């Protein structure tokens, strides 16, 4: 769609030029030259002056973390995220790509997945617990297996979390479907502007889940959850299976200590991931889980829930000193609560904070909520 068309469709034309977006933007705070408001101003103007091509060369469209913090506050209800996403799509078409992080390993891996070859990424699952090939529940594992390899040296264990998730489900008497054929959800491609690849992956996954006869798909990763819940229907219409986030799923079942959790004496703080919080509206489930663990005290950071800030990088692109600064600011904020542990609900947030901490002397542990839950269950 033409930029001009997007400006109308995504309400960008209603921008009051008030600056509340830029004032809220975590990037603008560390990278003063970046301003959502001014970027919109430039895009509108160049579209008006028939210089769309030029506007698609705009560097800043890639600097945005798409964290939706501005979206929450825009008095004109401008659909900024949708605008950026669509503009990136156009930019990608004319070859204006973003700077990938980790020299594009993850992107390449994703690319590779589209080749028909079978993968073997269920070994961990067979060790960790009971799974099956067909059934009611599909457990969508996502990129955890690759991340486990890519970030091994950081000492994070995404697969560990995946295992815990499976164990907990088993504990609930659910033996979910986990499949080798499963492909990346396409989240990163979508936000990198590579929509064709995204569609390819999505079509594949939808087909697979249908094939397994699953009615419910459980996600541990906020990005996968959001992508399925919001963006698959956008391109493929209503899905005929239910999209469930793991934390929503279990938070209903933890009443009166159903998991007989053993005490964990510690003070923790919780970081709302953009995709899970602002974009999927899941704020309370993770808190409910934390609260259910005996002895664990939750101290909120000043910027929580709607006001939470991004972990500094999204979809493996544009990782820079600015990202680091955003991460350190957030970690300091976490430290200020007096907590000794920073709990995240997203494998990527987990990785980014751990990475940031590895090069700092701040005493703070970063843990994945599923992991925390599992250890309280002694599994």
């Amino acid at each position, binding site marked *: 769609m033409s930029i001009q068309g997007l400006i109308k469709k995504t309400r960008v034309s209603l921008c009051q030029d008030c600056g509340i977006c830029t004032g809220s933007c975590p990037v603008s705070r560390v990278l003063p030259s970046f301003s959502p408001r001014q970027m919109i101003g*430039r895009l509108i103007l160049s579209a008006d002056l028939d210089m769309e091509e030029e506007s698609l060369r705009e560097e800043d469209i890639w600097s945005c973390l798409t964290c939706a913090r501005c979206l929450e506050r825009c008095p004109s209800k401008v659909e900024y995220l949708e605008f950026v996403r669509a503009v990136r799509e156009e930019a990608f078409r004319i070859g204006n790509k973003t700077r990938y992080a980790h020299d594009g390993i993850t992107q390449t891996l994703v690319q590779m997945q589209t080749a028909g070859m079978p993968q073997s990424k269920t070994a961990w699952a067979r060790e960790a617990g009971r799974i099956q090939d067909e059934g009611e529940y599909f457990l969508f594992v996502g990129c955890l297996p690759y991340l486990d390899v890519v970030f091994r040296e950081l000492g994070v264990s995404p697969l560990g979390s995946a295992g815990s998730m499976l164990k907990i489900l088993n504990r609930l008497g659910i033996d979910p479907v986990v499949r080798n054929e499963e492909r990346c959800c396409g989240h990163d491609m979508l936000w990198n502007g590579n929509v064709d690849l995204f569609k390819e992956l999505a079509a594949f996954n939808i087909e697979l889940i249908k094939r397994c006869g699953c009615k419910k798909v459980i996600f541990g990763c906020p990005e996968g959850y959001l992508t399925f819940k919001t963006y698959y229907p956008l391109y493929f219409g209503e899905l005929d299976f239910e999209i469930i986030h793991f934390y929503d799923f279990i938070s209903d079942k933890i009443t009166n200590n159903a998991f007989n959790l053993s005490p964990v004496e510690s003070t923790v703080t919780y970081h709302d991931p953009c995709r899970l919080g602002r974009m999927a509206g899941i704020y309370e489930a993770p808190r409910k889980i934390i609260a259910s663990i005996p002895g664990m005290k939750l101290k909120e950071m000043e910027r929580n829930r709607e006001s939470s800030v991004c972990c500094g990088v999204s979809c493996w692109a544009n990782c820079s000193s600015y990202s680091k600064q955003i991460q350190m600011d957030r970690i300091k904020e976490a430290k200020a609560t007096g907590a000794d542990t920073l709990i995240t609900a997203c494998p990527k947030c987990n990785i980014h904070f751990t990475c940031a901490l590895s090069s700092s002397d701040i005493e703070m542990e970063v843990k994945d909520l599923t992991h925390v839950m599992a250890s309280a269950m002694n599994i």
Partner: protein
Amino acid sequence: MNTELRIGVFICHCGINIAGVLDIKGLCEYAKALPNVVTAQANLFTCAETGTSAIKKAVKDNNLNRVVVAACTPRTHEPLFRASCKEAGINPFLFEMVNIREHCSWVHRHNKDAAQAKAGDLIRMAVAKAAFLEPIETFKSKVEPLTLVIGSGIAGMTSALALADQGFEVILIEKEENMGGLLRHLHKIAPANVAASELIEEKIAAIKKNKRIKYFTSAILEEVTGYVGNFSVRFSCGNDSYTCKVGVIIVATGGIPLRPEGLFNYDGKNVITQSELEIKLKKRDIEAKSIVMIQCAGARIPERNYCSRICCMVAIKNCLYLKDIIKDAKIFVLFRDIQAYGVENEALLLKAREAGVRFIRYRPDTPPVVENGKVKIYHPAMGKEIFLPADLVVLSTPIVAHDDAESISRILKVPINGNKFFLEAHAKLSPLDFAFNGIYLCGNARYPATVREATCQALGAASRACITLSHDTIERVGTVASVQEELCSTCFTCIKVCPYNVPYINERGRAEIEPMQCQGCGICVAECPAEAIEFKYISDKQIMAACEALLAS
């Protein structure tokens, strides 16, 4: 006055509010001993029915001719006690009140002796003053049930019709050949979305067929004398001169959009004003595909440092009509601050944005530059100067006062402000009145206003006028200054100092103060070097008496 002074003093306990601190009995004894005091008595609550009837009884029994009440503040209770005096058959102004509650018992609770002494002093001062009180009569003056409305724009016509609808006669004078004012040239009115011409024709027709309204076009106001209820007006119409007597005057002389000579290459063809645009819109002769509007053209600049209130909305309104006519028109509005105040205006602004009108902010230090076919403007987001295509440039110029504003203000003796807009009596609470009684104000003559606002003010001015018109006579309490001619040395001091321009030199060459106009501040009394000005309400004698009584003799 040579009749014997007989003063009655009434002291209020006000429950324990006063009695709790002051020894009322003692005060009564003290008061009794004061010169001219015939009786002094206490009441639990002087303001209660029992209290006021006690006063009336005492007046009768002791045939008092002065009453002093020592109680709370006169600001709330004086009217009540004056009324009691009246009922008791003595002039309400032969009454004096002493505040021994707010000014004594309540503020000196911990120092009863001093409070007691002070209360005594205050009563002594009041009694001394009472000796010099003089009866003050209220006088009446007839009201001419007729209104002069100056100006026949939407405001003037609305006022005239509103008054006629309430049954009052109106004389409407218009200096132009036709009635209708600014609206005659406009296209449509937002948000009503009616053609200005319709609105105007409708009103003009109504005025023409209304028997209560006499209208004169090409009429020039020449002289106004007199005061509220009783003005004599002279105006000329071509070669004939007319005089009439009216009770009130409504100023609805309007304003006019600035002609931006020498601004932004204004040429009236490719660079035009909003009003010129509206004429084009009426005729629908616009081909321009890209239009740039420039706000604050000649406003909010050192030589004209005010915001003309309506230009932003005029621009937005016209943007929407332009979009109706030319679907694919590119419209840029270059502005400093968009004045879309309230509900409807903000909604229209949103509508314009939805319609694709682009708003670009400029700062006064980097104003737009109009070159042929395009407009150069510093674009803050771009961080550089850019060129906007412009087949047509429209300048939003402010409403300015008419040239004759000054002469009218002189004729009516009402003030205008620095920008030559008429100056109301009070910016907050009397927006439609002049300090000078009997003259009212509405529409652009007051300050730029939308049609809706002007209509509102016009109805309001009519209402203010009706207050005078709905009485055959106006009463005025004589708490006013009056010149004793034989003493006047015609030094013009009073004329200089009066905040309301009331005093004037009469045909006998002496200063004269029209009681109907005097506001009773007493400024002239204090300044008159010949002590020729009398002020019965608070006379020098009274003040001196109070001063002399400051110390117990």
